[in-house]
């Protein structure tokens, strides 16, 4: 590798460099301004703004960074910068912006204000890990990025030490995380043992041209899927989700349910597409190597994930737990989009994710405002809240309706594109199972609405007043959910542009 390569590579990973620099700046600022931490969120915002501009530029400015020396001709580099990765980085950036506001409002975080430096440094660590996950095309880089993400999130899950549940969440997250990343590492080593390389494109060429023991390869693929499945909380790697979501500070819970899931999905899609797919056919379906049956595995996992997520969500009384299981179910729907193994499916996943970002974070934000005031996350304590705090009630209703997937909200459009992809691929049975799942989902989402509006308010029901910035913020979250529900052309156009994955 010569210097020219290095410079061009560095220019391709600008957002990551920005994030790293601001991570260091935050650490330094934390040391300098020992007493006053008010500056740190703004420093974080500045970093995010710069990074977001750089990410948007990546939609068109694509290429391979950190290529290997020319001993191996086909090597395309360790980092693949393309529109697909940029889309997920954008999702991560947007949710990070939202997270900064979340943390600014959250009581849990305010109580630990003197540790705000650590908090933001760790969040930037997460962002860095997720950015690399979205564009990594080398197994070693994938592993290191995954560890960076996991390590930061373990600590953040237990950031607020005032409740024991926090530490419990953190420890549970750590144990499950260590196990699954161990499994993944084992899978990576098998891949290396088979092919002698860790580069996904190299692996692709190798798999296409050599006879391989299918059992071994399947085993390794499943092990790697274990690592990814843990991040996107798919069955059977989902056990940590409800406990961690319930125990972690609510801002981190919301962030985990969107950003870290986005990174997991980006990784899954890129791993499959770069290592196993030879080309797209004219209709957008992927010509996948017959060495491992990703189609069946993904369908099985996604159906299990959504059904289990939805059925378990029915019995939850804590709204954070309910949203945790609902996020498991949503991961199932999105996995179904991947399982189609076509560009249509991928477009559906991207669209779904974009809308999911707003509706899920919006719901979490309102739950947090209510918890700030009442100190409770039990659904039973929401009785009559729709009357005492009508604005929050209506807003939460709209987010829930979007999560159910009813028109005219954006949630419906996400589901619609998913089912379009499924029907086009003639996966009718699967589509029907997924649709029946949305009927189940209706029941537990509507339960929250029932408590808010249909049940009489009790004496204890408090009025949750909302200050103006929060109102503006909620409207800002609601706007995409409602506007894109009736005019979704731009989002779909953008998603279609971003479905191009480099490397085929």
């Amino acid at each position: 590798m010569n210097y020219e390569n290095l410079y061009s590579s560095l220019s391709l990973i600008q957002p990551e460099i920005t994030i790293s620099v601001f991570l260091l700046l935050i650490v330094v600022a934390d040391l300098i301004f020992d007493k006053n931490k008010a500056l740190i969120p703004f420093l974080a915002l500045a970093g995010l703004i710069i990074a977001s501009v750089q990410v948007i530029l990546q939609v068109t400015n694509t290429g391979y960074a950190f290529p290997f020396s020319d001993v191996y001709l086909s090597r395309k580099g360790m980092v693949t910068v393309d529109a697909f990765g940029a889309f997920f980085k954008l999702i991560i950036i947007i949710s990070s912006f939202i997270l900064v506001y979340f943390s600014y409002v959250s009581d849990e975080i305010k109580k630990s204000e003197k540790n705000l430096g650590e908090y933001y440094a760790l969040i930037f660590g997460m962002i860095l890990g997720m950015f690399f996950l979205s564009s990594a095309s080398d197994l070693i880089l994938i592993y290191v990025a995954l560890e960076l993400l996991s390590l930061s999130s373990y600590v953040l899950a237990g950031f607020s030490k005032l409740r024991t549940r926090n530490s419990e969440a953190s420890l549970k997250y750590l144990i499950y995380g260590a196990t699954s990343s161990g499994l993944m590492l084992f899978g990576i080593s098998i891949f290396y043992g088979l092919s002698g390389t860790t580069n996904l494109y190299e692996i692709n060429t190798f798999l296409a041209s050599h006879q391989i023991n299918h059992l071994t390869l399947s085993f390794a693929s499943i092990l790697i899927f274990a690592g990814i499945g843990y991040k996107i909380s798919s069955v059977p790697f989902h056990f940590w989700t409800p406990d961690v979501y319930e125990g972690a500070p609510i801002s981190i819970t919301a962030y985990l349910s969107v950003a870290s899931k986005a990174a997991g999905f980006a990784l899954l899609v890129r791993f499959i597409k770069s290592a196993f797919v030879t080309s797209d056919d004219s209709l957008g379906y992927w010509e996948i190597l017959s060495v491992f049956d990703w189609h069946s595995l993904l369908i099985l996992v996604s159906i299990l994930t959504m059904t289990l997520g939805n059925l378990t969500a029915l019995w939850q009384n804590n709204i954070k737990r309910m949203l945790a299981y609902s996020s498991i179910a949503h991961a199932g729907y999105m996995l179904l989009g991947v399982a189609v193994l076509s560009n249509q499916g991928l477009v559906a996943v991207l669209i779904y994710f974009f809308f999911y970002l707003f509706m899920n974070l919006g719901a979490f934000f309102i739950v947090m405002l209510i918890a700030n005031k009442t100190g409770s996350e039990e659904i039973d304590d929401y009785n009559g809240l729709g009357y005492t705090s009508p604005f929050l009630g209506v807003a939460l209703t709209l987010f829930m309706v979007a999560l159910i997937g009813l028109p005219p909200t954006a949630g419906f459009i996400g589901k619609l594109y998913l089912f379009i992809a499924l029907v086009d691929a003639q996966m009718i049975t699967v589509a029907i199972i997924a649709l029946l799942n949305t009927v189940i989902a209706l029941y537990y989402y509507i339960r929250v609405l029932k408590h808010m509006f249909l049940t009489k308010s009790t004496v204890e029901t408090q009025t949750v007043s909302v200050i103006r910035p929060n109102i503006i913020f909620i409207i800002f979250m609601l706007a995409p959910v409602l506007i894109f529900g009736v005019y979704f052309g731009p989002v779909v156009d953008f998603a279609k542009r971003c479905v191009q994955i480099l490397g085929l």
Partner: protein
Amino acid sequence: MEGFPIISLITFIPVIGMLVILFLPKEKVQNIKITALAATLIQLVLSVILMANYNYSAGGIFEESSFQFIDKFRWINIEGLSWIGTVKIDYFMGVDGISMPMVLLTSIISVIACISSWNISKSLKGYFALFLLLDTGMMGVFVSLDFFLFYVFWELMLLPMYFLIGIWGGPRKEYAAIKFFLYTLLGSIFILIVMLGLYFSAMEILPDGQRVFTFNILTMMDQSNYTQDGILSPFNPNNWRMLAYIALFIGFAIKIPMFPFHTWLPDAHVEAPTPISVILAGVLLKMGTYGILRISYPIFPDITRELAWYIALFGAVNIIYGAFVALAQKDFKKLIAYSSVSHMGYVLLGMASLTTAGINGAILQMFNHGTITAMLFLIVGVVYDRAHTRGLNDFGGLASQMPVYTGFVTVAFFAAIGLPSLSGFISEALVFIGAFHVESIRVITIISTLGILLGAGYMLWAMQRVFFGKLNEKWSGLQDLEMREYIMFIPLTIIIILLGVYPSLMLDVMNTSVNTLVDFVSTNFTNISLGGL
């Protein structure tokens, strides 16, 4: 009327009203009520104007050119990459003879229900906002000619309905509301999946010669628009048209509600407040049968011919079953609810005949049932408001106590029974004439006539128990009708009598379209394989 988006205005005027209401302060009760009433009244006036300008000779159904008052523009336009094609969704609305009576019905019932809501006191602002949103949803269903748009409106009314029953309903409101919601959502996922299947089977030819998949309902009716290998294409030897038809039919049947999917209806009716019962029976149930006529029939004429017998059978079951269960009721409102089940059976029977008389009768029955049942629910509302009970056996001798009220009740009851010179008679007679003509369903038709007898039985029996006999002393303080109730009852009574003596008023509107539909269903999509089952 050129260029004036009257249909869109009719559909969205309630939403405008809703927005106004949302910005009114909660305390301005009177302003909120008046805004809601104004919105529904404007809608009614516009509908009447629409009716006045309606061209009776245009057929509609499958030809865009013979639809009237069309509002159409590209709503979503996504330029395709090579693999997913161009996605274009139209905002496409228009009326023909099938939707015109429904538009009129919806606006009439909305005004009546709005007046009937006058004494609602709990969370007034939310109530009227949801009420108007519901109005838009219903109206949108009746005028949409793009499947996607249709579906959006179809789902749009679920949530307002859930809250309207759930917040302002009776003691078991939560159960009734969620049951309604789950049933209809289950039905609509069937509709959704068929919609997507059709989307991938029919292609529209754009002016520039490009062929794109489409949600346009009219495009889906033309056999030549189907692709060779589409999953619901008649050209595909392994097509799923039969299954899709059944799925779609179930989706609509839940709304009708057709036996055995009817169990949500009695619960919803009993728990809902009077105005919502009026809307539910007056308009919502018609959406199911309308959907079958608008979508199932012309898009799947082949399967329709094949399954007409079963539709008739289910119609007969509805008639007889509904009537028998109505006989056993002790609750006034439940009785009316089950009579609805029975009366919607006539609509199914008429539709299944596939004759001009039968389908004319079915649509007229939809309109008449809408007005008559609305009146019946208002009648229950009047007595419930005063006595706070609905038990049929709790009353007696009300005729002497409330003579004017009893007069209106008599008109409504006799109309429901199908007494000549009242509107119910004409539509039921047409249904039976149409159905009797068709040899294959003649036996079913003959059995169904039993329903008239039973109908007379439960109606008259109920009347006797409530209004005649000795006056229960408990109710000697009951007042007769007040002004607001006159305003609700008189227009409905006029319509019932008018359509009873001069049914052509409505029949002429629908006749051309019905002829077109019958002709279309019996001649199109012939000689194609019925795969899938």
